[in-house]
């Protein structure tokens, strides 16, 4: 059954305005609509100037992240029916520069991701004839959770540490570092340590823990960062007692 609601949408048109504003759109929505459906409806039926990102519509590509009633959300899986408020406030993801309306500049995030070397690093490559790098399901289970990230940046948007200091490497990138550190086929823990344990790396995290709560894929970046702190601290302690030894 169709229902009525008001979407209060953050608008910023850089070629015409210097300040952002909120624009209200009264819409008739269906029970099955997610916030992204409502925004699509506004764009096609009411106001074609509204800009926002999306692609897969099924929580996989990570491009539809926005702030819905103050919380970072994937709008393609956030149902309007779950909000009992009269109006739903839609804003761009916090802590990122706004390019236009709900579109943020993700360059900082994209530059940070490769700094943690998120790929398998081995001391020596095996010859091709030696075959694949095998792994048991149990070995995969150790890191699987941290490998589910879809780069939606909700965690950065929820993290006040990143909001206060954008030099912080941030939750998703650090979780990815731990994902590879925990991989039985990887030998890059030491190589990653320069970035991971740098001044703006893991030690900047104060464990607010909101990154984990808002993650749509249950990645637990906050946990990953604390695990990194523990493992690198143990490595450091081991290197004091047994020079030349690490993880």
């Amino acid at each position: 059954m169709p229902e009525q609601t008001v979407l209060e949408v953050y608008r910023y048109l850089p070629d015409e305005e210097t300040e952002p504003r909120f624009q209200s759109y009264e819409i008739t929505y269906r029970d099955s609509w997610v916030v992204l459906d409502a925004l699509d409806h506004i764009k096609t039926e009411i106001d074609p100037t509204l800009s926002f990102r999306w692609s897969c519509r099924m929580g996989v590509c990570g491009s539809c992240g926005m702030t819905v009633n103050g919380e970072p959300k994937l709008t393609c899986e956030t149902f309007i029916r779950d909000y009992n408020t009269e109006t739903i406030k839609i804003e761009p993801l916090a802590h990122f520069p706004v390019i236009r309306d709900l579109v943020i500049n993700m360059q900082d995030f994209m530059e940070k991701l490769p700094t943690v070397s998120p790929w398998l690093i081995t001391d020596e490559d095996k010859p091709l004839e030696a075959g694949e790098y095998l792994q048991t399901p149990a070995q995969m289970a150790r890191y699987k959770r941290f490998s589910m990230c879809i780069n939606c940046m909700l965690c950065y948007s929820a993290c006040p540490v990143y909001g206060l200091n954008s030099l912080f490497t941030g939750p998703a990138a650090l979780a990815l570092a731990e994902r590879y550190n925990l991989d039985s086929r990887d030998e890059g823990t030491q190589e990653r340590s320069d970035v991971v344990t740098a001044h703006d790396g893991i030690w900047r995290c104060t464990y607010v823990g909101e990154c984990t709560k808002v993650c749509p894929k249950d990645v637990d970046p906050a946990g990953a960062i604390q695990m990194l702190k523990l493992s690198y601290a143990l490595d450091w302690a081991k290197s004091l007692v047994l020079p030349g030894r690490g993880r």
Partner: protein
Amino acid sequence: MSRELTHPLPRSWWLKRPPYFRFMMRELTSVAVFAYTPLLIWALWSAADAASFSVFYEFLRGPLSVWLHVVVLVLAVYHTGTWIALTPSVLVLWRNDEQVDPNLITGTTAMLFLSVSVGVVWLVLV
């Protein structure tokens, strides 16, 4: 060239969302733990001779001291509780390729904390 907008976090950022507020409370309660240390230093200092120890002892028996201890105890227990609750995120253990139940880790940490606390109370009172 289009202009991008930035929205720096205001100083009151921790009042904007309840989880941020709870985080700040967790951090602030550690100040109470820190603030208690001068009392411990005074205790050590006063142990040098009987006269200064009796001054310290009299202070401990006073109402100000009792209130101080009640407040610090509540804040310290809250602070400890928040960290015990977070332990399983840091301590991810595996046994025979199965992850150890996070509740077991929280429970064990809580029990350890309680046992040590009871041990200290027993040492002081008995």
